[in-house]
């Protein structure tokens, strides 16, 4: 049994936004495989090591899975929750250098939505 279960953010219309992002043209097959494999590996690890995640000053609840594929940094953002043993991915981005504030703001807004309404996430879609 896994230590962690990963969840994906659902839009108001119930669409899995993380699955949409992972299957968009912006994310290569290599990156998608890498992100999903990383999630699968992290599921059993008690505490995510610092090499695998990034935290941001001023955004204490948000974490980024650190994933680089073919020199491109993919930035799936999430948080621990909404319940114990859960980690929810709320938004994905591909931004060079410093992560844009707007992406963090959007992620935090979605975090608040999920905290208020846990039905706005569903189990991570590996397809």
């Amino acid at each position, binding site marked *: *049994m*896994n*230590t962690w*279960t990963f969840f994906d953010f659902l839009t108001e219309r119930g669409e899995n936004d993380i699955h949409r992002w992972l299957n968009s043209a912006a994310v290569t*097959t*290599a990156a*998608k*495989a*890498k992100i*999903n*494999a*990383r999630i*699968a*590996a*992290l*599921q*059993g*690890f*008690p*505490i995510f*090591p610092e*090499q*695998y995640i990034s935290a941001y000053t001023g955004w204490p609840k948000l974490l980024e899975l*650190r994933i*680089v594929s073919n020199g491109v940094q993919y930035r799936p953002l999430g948080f*621990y929750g909404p319940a*114990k*043993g859960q980690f929810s991915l709320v938004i994905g981005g591909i931004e060079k250098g410093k992560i844009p504030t707007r992406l963090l703001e959007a992620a935090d807004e979605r975090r608040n939505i999920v905290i208020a309404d846990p039905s706005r996430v569903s*189990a*991570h*879609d*590996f*397809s």
Partner: protein
Amino acid sequence: MNAGTLSLQTRAESAPTILARRQLLQSFRDEEYRRLFVEERVRASVALQIRALRQQRDMTQAKLGLAIGMAQTWVSKLEDPEYGKMTVATLLRLAGAFDADIEIKFRPFSRTLASLPAQGPDYFHVPTFEEEFGSEGLDSETIGRVLNIQSIRNQVINSPGAAASAGIGAIVESGDTNIAGAARLIENHSPANSAQQRTPTTPKKPTTSALDRTRPELGREDHYGNHQGSAGQSGMAL
């Protein structure tokens, strides 16, 4: 057995786990995807295992570096999932430093799919030889039975259909890596014990072994400071 309907559900399994396995199978039909998935899974799993085993042995990166003849900065790289350039020689040195065996084995994707959802804390916990067979030791008969079960476990993993055999599936899926845990499972699944379960009698007083301290699920706390019990029920179905 049809690989598309592979079933090994000797115990209850959550719907998300079954769904995740189906989704992965769907993705694995893309050859590039499955090749890259394996590449990343191996890199990340090995890096995570090195970190986990180092911490279980209360070693700093510098101390582990000393043990394997490498600088601390190299140990940091070995724990970085993006590195992925470690050699078999390095892994063997790490195995020596951790006082653990290491298995490097090719396997079919059915095993990948079966094992991923069960890659829990036990996967990252590897006791040392001393912790498994230490001086407090179990009697030779128990050790012999456990080693026999481990042999059966390997056979069943390589031939999942056989796991339907009564009692074996639970042991195989338990992921128990130490003698004490396996001995407990054998006891639970022994015919005599099964008969006892069918015919209620005075409950046996639970026995604990000094080796229990090597079991990570006992007394673990999560990020929320909540106690997490045993790994619980898990099974495999696709």
